[in-house]
């Protein structure tokens, strides 16, 4: 059941079973690949880790509507416009699935939205980069959604049931996002010299931020070990990043475009690609709020929330009026 309105607070059993044995049983269930459901006992640290991760993920989907939404009115054809609208609508839907999953852990939607709008909650740093050209829409679909899929597929097997189920739904839809992006890049890469230059320029700007999406290197990742123990996370940041590079290099080659990394090379011995150092200083700056579009993105979300307030209130007032009218007819 997807609701915290049901009694999730009934966590403390009447008979004082000690916390250690509850935790032991919880870990055994996780080890046995059983899913943990909202009303099951879980350690507070597990609950808080999930709330943080799922809500950050939800915020990322919602903020992620903005960079591409920027191009809806200027898409070059009606078909591309329809595709882009469908994709942006999907991102909104993904945000909705994920907020619902987070709410099963006992946090309200209002709290989550408030955390985003006041700047306390984080969202994926990638969405703080601008989309100055149409090719950015292609590069985002291909690289950003590609990296997201790489991160998200293992989450379909995450130990927390509602999150895993939301991710199954999301992954099913995400593949369309990546393919429409690659298709757009392919069309530009096969177009005029100017179009190809535009595609290359977008690739140059999105490549490194896409690699940063996998998070800090394993050695510096603060949340990883608990998450792996609890089977929330199945692969390390560096493993997934490497896999993404290995998948993407041949795709770029097929486009006839060059990845902006002079150190990128195939290693015969390891059968993997080696790539240059990532500028973690840039990543940290963007995360701290100093990226090119942080201020703009949050301002857009706040405006949408504030300007929509009267609609939400009016809908509630209308629903209440209908309910009363029905009640008085019945009386």
């Amino acid at each position, binding site marked *: 059941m997807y*609701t915290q309105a*049901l009694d999730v607070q009934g966590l403390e059993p009447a008979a004082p079973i000690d916390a250690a044995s509850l935790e032991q049983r919880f870990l055994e269930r996780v080890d046995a690949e059983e899913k943990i459901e909202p009303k099951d006992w879980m350690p507070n640290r597990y609950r808080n880790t999930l709330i943080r991760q799922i809500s950050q993920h939800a915020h990322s989907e919602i903020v992620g509507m903005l960079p591409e939404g920027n191009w809806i009115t200027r898409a070059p054809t009606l078909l591309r416009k329809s595709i882009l609208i469908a994709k942006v609508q999907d991102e909104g839907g993904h945000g909705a699935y994920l907020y619902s999953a987070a709410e099963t852990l006992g946090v309200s939607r209002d709290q989550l939205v408030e955390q985003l709008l006041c700047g306390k909650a984080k969202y994926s740093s990638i969405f703080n980069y601008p989309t100055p050209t149409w090719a950015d829409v292609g590069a985002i679909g291909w690289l950003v959604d590609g990296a997201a899929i790489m991160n998200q597929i293992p989450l379909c097997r995450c130990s927390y049931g509602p999150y895993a189920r939301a991710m199954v739904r999301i992954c099913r839809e995400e593949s369309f996002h990546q393919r429409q992006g690659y298709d757009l890049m392919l069309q530009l890469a096969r177009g005029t010299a100017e179009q190809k230059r535009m595609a290359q320029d977008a690739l140059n700007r999105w490549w490194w931020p896409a690699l940063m999406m996998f998070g800090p290197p394993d050695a510096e990742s603060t949340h990883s070990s608990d998450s792996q123990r609890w089977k929330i996370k199945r692969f390390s940041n560096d493993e997934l990043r490497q896999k993404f590079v290995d998948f993407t290099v041949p795709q770029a080659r097929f486009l006839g475009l060059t990845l902006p990394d002079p150190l990128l090379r195939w290693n015969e011995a390891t059968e993997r690609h080696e790539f240059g150092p990532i500028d973690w200083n840039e990543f940290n700056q963007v995360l701290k709020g100093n990226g090119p579009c942080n201020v703009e993105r949050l301002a857009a979300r706040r405006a949408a929330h504030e300007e929509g307030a009267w609609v939400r*209130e009016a809908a509630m007032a209308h629903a209440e009026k209908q309910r009363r009218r029905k009640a008085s007819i019945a009386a």
Partner: protein
Amino acid sequence: MGERVEDKHQWPLYEVFIRARGGLDHKHAGSLHAADAPMAIEHARDVYTRRQEGVSIWVVRSTDITASDPADADSLFEPARDKVYRHPTFYEIPDEVKTL
């Protein structure tokens, strides 16, 4: 009905059930917030059936659902475990007997 006034500004939570095709049961798809049931149906259409996932939608206020407690799982479901005679495979029927 949900007389409890929660947060005035927060739309109540609804659970969504979708029938994927005619002939199948409605199945829990997820949840969403809406001001009332008609809006919940409209939102469910947009959130859960963008790719023809359904032909029919049910919505119900989450607070109107009563659920069993996981702590009671043993007393509720355990008694069924040792009643193997409830299953047809418990009975060995001689090969000569057909269509049984």
